């Protein structure tokens, strides 16, 4: 027995002395941030790692807000080099960055992502306007009798909103409040629909807080189901429940065209061309933010940005479009590629 114990201790000591590579400098790029931008950054990261002599960057999906917080924590190898974001950096975040010594930030717009409303193929097709969408999902809506008051949302079936809509109950599955997709959906779809009411639109100038509460609050009585951050789960649930609608990024619709179809919004089909042209109303831009101070410090960062902004990645036929990225028009791409080459600093 004693021998056994001894042997075990010896073994433990032996393996503890396995060679370890001590690292004072970092030789790989670290990227944090939005889970919406994650599918695109990871593809570039992987290709970059395979094609060049540099190591593949590490990409963490922390959400836009969480990513920018890490990004702005300071300069040095312990802090990330790039932040993914599915919205523009907020001025409060920018100030936070400045305070922590992250003075020079380069902003790169990647392209667009459409937020789609989809339904199972087994159900019937119908289209929605932003106004109808707002009436279906808002917590408080303008009094249907016409007075300039808001009442708690009374609608339970689509038909009640507009006779042209199907007679099924309102059931929408979408992302929770922590998600950037939700932020963008609220800002673009809900607020867009909300502005169809003149008296609410007027509130924007004189009482912005009330305006925001009305336009940005999604109902909590069960008609809107927070389905978690996992979009695949929403796809599966839609497949088993043909009455429900789901809200997710265009790439998930693109991969599941045999099971789902996207609803036309304001008469526009959610497809590649319509989102790229800007005709589809619910689309948002995606960004990455780069620390200028790290460009010299981290090997490969400059080359990584070049790969990212090359036409073979983000161009009209680049490999990112295979993953569902909606590219920017050529002149806008050129402008951002130039900004990256000159490391033009973001000012706010």
């Amino acid at each position, binding site marked *: 027995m004693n021998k056994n114990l001894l042997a075990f201790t010896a073994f433990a000591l032996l393996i503890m002395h396995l060679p370890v590579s001590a690292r004072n400098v970092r030789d790989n790029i670290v990227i944090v941030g939005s889970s919406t931008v994650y599918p695109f950054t990871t593809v570039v990261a992987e290709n970059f790692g395979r094609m060049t002599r540099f190591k593949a960057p*590490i990409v963490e999906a922390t959400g836009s807000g969480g990513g920018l917080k890490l990004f702005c924590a300071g300069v040095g190898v312990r802090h990330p080099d790039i932040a993914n974001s599915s919205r523009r950096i907020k001025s409060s975040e920018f100030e936070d960055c400045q305070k922590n010594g992250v003075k020079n930030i380069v902003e790169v717009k990647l392209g667009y992502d459409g937020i789609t409303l989809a339904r199972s193929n087994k159900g019937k097709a119908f289209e929605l306007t932003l106004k109808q969408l707002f009436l279906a999902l808002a917590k408080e809506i303008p009094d249907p009798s016409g007075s300039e008051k808001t009442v708690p949302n009374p609608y339970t079936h689509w038909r009640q909103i507009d006779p042209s809509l199907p007679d099924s109950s309102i059931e929408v599955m979408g992302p929770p409040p922590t998600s950037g997709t939700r932020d963008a959906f609220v800002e673009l779809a809900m607020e867009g629909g909300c502005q169809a009411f003149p008296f609410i639109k007027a509130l924007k100038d004189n009482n912005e807080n009330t305006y925001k509460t009305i336009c940005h609050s999604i109902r909590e009585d069960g008609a809107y189901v927070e389905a978690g951050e996992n979009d695949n789960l929403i796809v599966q649930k839609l497949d088993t429940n043909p009455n429900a609608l789901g809200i997710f990024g265009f790439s998930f619709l693109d991969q599941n065209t045999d099971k789902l179809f996207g609803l036309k919004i304001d008469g526009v089909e959610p497809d590649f061309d319509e989102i790229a042209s800007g005709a589809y109303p619910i689309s948002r831009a995606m960004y990455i933010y780069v620390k200028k101070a790290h460009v010299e410090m981290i090997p490969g960062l400059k080359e990584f940005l070049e790969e990212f902004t090359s036409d073979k990645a983000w161009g009209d036929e680049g490999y990112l479009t295979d993953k569902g990225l909606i590219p920017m028009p050529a002149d806008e791409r050129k402008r951002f590629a130039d900004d990256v080459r000159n490391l033009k600093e973001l000012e706010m």
Partner: protein
Amino acid sequence: MNNRTDSLSTMEKVRKGIAKRRSAERRFRFYGLTGIVLGLVFVLILFISIIGKGYGAFQQTQIALDIEFLESVIDPNQTRDSKVISRADYNSLIRKSLTKVFPEVKGRRQIRDLNRMISSGAMFQLRDRVLEDPSVIGRSERVWLLASDDYDMLMKGHIERSVPESERRLKDHQVAWVDKLLEQGLIKKRFNTFFFTAGDSRAPEMAGIRGALMGSMYTLFVTLVLSFPIGAATAVYLEEFAPTNKWTDLIEVNINNLAAVPSIVFGLLGLAMFINFFGLPRSAPLVGGLVLTLMTLPTIIIAGRAALKSVPPSIREAALGMGASKLQTVFHHVLPLALPGMLTGTIIGMAQALGETAPLLMIGMVAFIVDIPKGIFDSATVLPVQIYLWADSPERAFVERTSAAIMVLLAFLISMNAVAVFLRKRFERRW
């Protein structure tokens, strides 16, 4: 007389009750059996659904192409320098041989579609082939190349041919290409070695579990090396040497409470202590192992103390009576007897640690990492995180990979438990 009638009536009461008591026992046995059967059915459903979804991932569709390894493309100056060779444009070789198989395909769009049939990773297969054996340059050879994920899904029946063309990811002309290859025997499902040798990838056909598997191993290694000695020493000291006073009581209560702390809290602690204060690298198995050590320590200590308590006092008394010192008593007699129980506790703790993702989220191990970690300082991810990341990917082909990764995780767990059972059997002593 009076007494007799009394005892008779007692017997009658007993007899009357017998049937009731027996049926109560039968009912209870029935409940117990139902519980077991239900449990087994659920486990069975779980296994069937995972294996049913995941077994497909162990096969991968590959396409055979006769590749001409043209010297003019690979190494025009005949340097045979590995740097030149690895930078060559292998895609053009693939394109060339594809047009030979499908001479009828014309038009930019069609040709683009045709080239997409082969995975974007195929060029690395060719590169590795040439690097391994440069003499292949200038010759022609039949190579099995990875098909891209959509074609793989078609071959496995996850993209159905019966669906109308407009709703299918692969259009009719693409399906016709597959049929042509099938006729010539140039496309088939082969064993998926990539799944076990490659790291993570965003292209499903190139994604492998090895990176996460190695990450899990390194992390668990750190956890085991730290938590077992510390946990065992703590348990032995508290149980055998420590005086009973309010300090040891306080420590005991705290250890018990610590076992119930949600794991994410340990992640936050790890972020604040190991990464921000000590400056250890983010995403490293070392930090992951440290955090998981904190999490598993209470489990190991509590199990260790229970094992020590179950050693009969007569053993200690006999040893002391024979003149052994306290230390000798513990190490020669008590500890060997308690070791099987301690090992069980350790394995339960390690199994918990293996399945944990929440604390790792905070320390950056939930990340997309292509390179396979080579040590405890390299960035890595672990098996449950890999499962989560794949489950969240839009590509259809990741569904089967998710289930396959779960199978690998379960296999890891079962083999770990098997080692524990083996060790326990070896060390087991009876008294």
